[in-house]
């Protein structure tokens, strides 16, 4: 067996063992004594935005229908014996999956039969076994999933924002695609995408629970197959995207009880190295916390005058594939006034700079918030896997955070959270109802 490397976190008083299977998949084993639950996650670096690429072994780029990564996630659960999920149920395990902009994640949890469940996971994700008839049937199911999301105002306001913000980048497309794009998907295309993206070198596996890492590593290595013949230099093609948002505002009407507003800020940063991304995430999170956290003057002013309620939230997401955004908003009776108050607040903050004391206190706060995240095998493994997939080690969080200065935060505030980058997305009640 190959040797495992130890990655330690003094802060969490935890160690993770890192390995690589003969076929080239990176694996991490996180022993968590005392926990009853086992959790395993397999992340494939392939999401809704990867629909233009050069197929493995090919020369010419192809463009796959929108929503194909999500469709493939659904279909891998079908094999000739029926449904893969049922075989997890037989073991008492519960399996699920999700597709995001840049990843497809498969995971299961159980309290027994851990090794057998692990073999099952590695097997079904790596070997597509579905037929043509199942592909046709899946179109109806996904059609209903798309309709369900269209009835969800939070989903709608968010995708409207992305569509206004991005002119060309595929992040503007619904992860599940549209009924029309989904209709174009067939088995051949799905297999082509699987062959290209579900390459061991394009996947990461993390397992957590009360186990012996050496023993579990042996199971993973034997179940994950032999040597990888081709290197996984996947060529993904993304269109050029202007720095500015395509549209400054967008509004939609649906049967909601109260208007919703979401302000999105398009990220101009173009350094997508893992270090830059990791740092940008942390700096932006601190800026948002100082500006819109519960201790902030702005948040409390907006709350006291009734412009926001408990639904208000602000968050940042940056990805390595040419896009990133910060979004904030919630339910309000006066969407225009709220958007104006937020932009005004940001302008004032940019002029004055962030409060140094507040800035320092956010670090202290992060300790507890961070600790709590690692009180379950599920969260621990998920976070570790997603950070690793982007080339970062979640254990470095504190080291990176301690080095962030007030100047860094102010610089980020001024360059990113300004009106030039901003899109205002609204969902308003139907005209007939007020």
């Amino acid at each position, binding site marked *: 067996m190959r040797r495992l490397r130890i990655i330690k976190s003094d802060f969490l008083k935890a160690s993770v063992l890192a390995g690589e299977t003969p076929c080239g998949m990176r694996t991490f084993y996180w022993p968590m004594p005392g926990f009853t639950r086992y959790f395993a996650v397999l992340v494939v670096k392939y999401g809704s935005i990867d629909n233009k690429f050069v197929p493995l072994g090919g020369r010419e780029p192809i463009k796959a229908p929108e929503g194909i990564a999500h469709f493939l996630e659904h279909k891998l659960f079908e094999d000739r014996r029926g449904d893969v999920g049922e075989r997890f*149920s037989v073991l008492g395990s*519960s399996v699920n999956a999700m597709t995001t902009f840049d990843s497809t994640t498969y995971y299961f949890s159980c*309290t027994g039969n851990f090794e057998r469940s692990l073999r099952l996971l590695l097997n079904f994700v790596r070997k597509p076994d579905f037929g043509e008839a199942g592909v046709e049937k899946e179109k109806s*199911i996904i059609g209903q999933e798309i309709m*369900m999301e269209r*009835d969800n105002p939070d989903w709608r306001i968010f995708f409207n924002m992305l569509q206004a913000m991005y002119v060309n980048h595929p992040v503007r497309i619904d992860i599940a695609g549209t009924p029309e794009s989904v209709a174009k998907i067939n088995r051949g295309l799905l297999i082509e995408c699987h062959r290209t993206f579900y390459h061991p070198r394009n996947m990461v596996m993390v397992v957590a629970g009360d186990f012996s890492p050496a023993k579990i590593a042996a199971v993973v290595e034997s179940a994950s197959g032999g040597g990888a013949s081709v290197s996984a230099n996947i060529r993904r093609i993304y269109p050029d995207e202007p720095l500015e948002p395509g549209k400054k505002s967008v509004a939609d009407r649906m049967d909601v009880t109260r208007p919703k507003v979401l302000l999105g800020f398009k990220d101009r940063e173009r350094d997508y190295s893992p270090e830059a991304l990791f740092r940008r995430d942390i700096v932006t999170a601190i800026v948002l916390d100082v500006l819109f956290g*519960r201790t902030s003057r702005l948040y409390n002013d907006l709350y006291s005058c009734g412009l926001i309620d408990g639904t208000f939230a602000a968050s940042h997401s940056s990805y390595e594939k040419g896009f990133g955004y910060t979004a904030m908003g919630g339910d309000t009776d006066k969407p225009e006034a709220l958007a104006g108050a937020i932009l005004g607040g940001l302008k004032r903050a940019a002029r004055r700079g962030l409060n140094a004391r507040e800035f320092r206190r956010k670090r202290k*706060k992060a300790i507890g918030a961070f600790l709590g995240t690692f009180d379950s*095998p599920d969260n621990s493994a998920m976070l570790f896997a997603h950070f690793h997939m982007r080339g970062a080690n979640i254990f470095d969080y504190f080291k990176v955070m301690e080095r962030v200065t007030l100047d860094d935060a102010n610089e980020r505030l001024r360059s990113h959270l300004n009106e030039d980058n901003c899109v205002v997305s609204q969902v308003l009640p139907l005209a007939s109802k007020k």
Partner: protein
Amino acid sequence: MQERHHFRFTSIKAGEGVSAHVLPTRKFKTTTICLIIGRDLDERASHAALLAEVLKRGSAKYPDMRVIAEEMEEMYGASFGCGISRIGGKQTLTMRLTLPNERFLPRRTRLLDRGFNFMQEMLLRPLASHGAFNKDVVKREKANLQARIFSLLNDKMGYAQRRCIEEMCRTERFRFYEYGEVAKVARITPRALFDFYKELLATRPADVFVVGDVDCEKIAERVERMFKGRKPGGYFFAEPEPEPPSRSPRKVMEKQDMEQAKLCMGLRTHTTVRDPDYAAAVMYNGLLGGFSHSRLFRSIREKEALAYDAHSYLENSRGLMIVGVGMEKRNLGKVARVIEAQMDEIRDGKISRDEMNKTRKSVITRLRSSVDSPLQLMHLHYSQMVNGVNICLDEWVKRISAVAAADVKALAGKVAIDTIYVLSPLDGKPKQ
């Protein structure tokens, strides 16, 4: 390496109508404290819901959200919450505080004491004067609570389920929404809310749960100090209501401007957590729609491709089951027939060994998993306690394991469809 820990709370009486439930463990990196005050759902559900929001917003010592949030940051990122929840026909007001465990902090700090002091301030010394809560806070929180109640309309499945329960339980406590009603919230004055608060503290049982690296006796003492001076009293819940007489299924239909229709079926299993055959009811729900291997998901989604989601859940204090499916409007009838056909099959005893096996294992995994989450552990214990039972996890596992197909068949014979609720897109809405 694997050793099964026994996760049982030690319950200690800590005053009149007050109990401390402590689970010492070093497994977690945090300590979780939950203070729960329970009451029977009634016309004043809106009062309790508003009270939770008002208490959360400030106390005499921590007068606004900003000061509260600063205190949380000073406690190394502790998190505080206060809100309403429900267990069957009961409404609970819960204050929760999660603290990082002291052994992970840079300096030795007595965080647990500080946490308890904070909770005591928030619950017992609210922002009030002359027998009334602060009127600005009450006014603002009334508006927010009303908006929240309204906003249920935005979550179509959530709304459909709520309406189904309302229609089904028109004469029972169960009909009350735990967040109250818009019109009733409007009528609450700062003084009436304060009276309600005083009455709640003086008459309702309080339960304080603590999970973490703590000492039982010390926690019990601290809790006792917190509630010192409570007078002896009832501190009981009302007796369970009798079930309404059975009747043929009622159909209710509503329309909204939306894309996808929702179908909710309200079933009565006539079996609660207090009954010896409750384990069979859990298995029945598991076979019908509790999991992705269950019949509803298999038949409606995988076989007929009529829906993305099809599920059911079982409620333990009244034995109600709600089935929920989202589908194209024109397939409503088809879906309803599939659901009834599946219920018929189980009632006829057409239950495979394979589905029994999968369901049993899935239920047991879910039960066992709860010991990895402080909040789930607390919920499991409390939800049984208010129903007057105290059955440990191992015993549940044993009971589930012992359920045979014949038991499920017998249980299925008791299940009746009570209400069929449909939320449908407007007529003339263009086809999907």
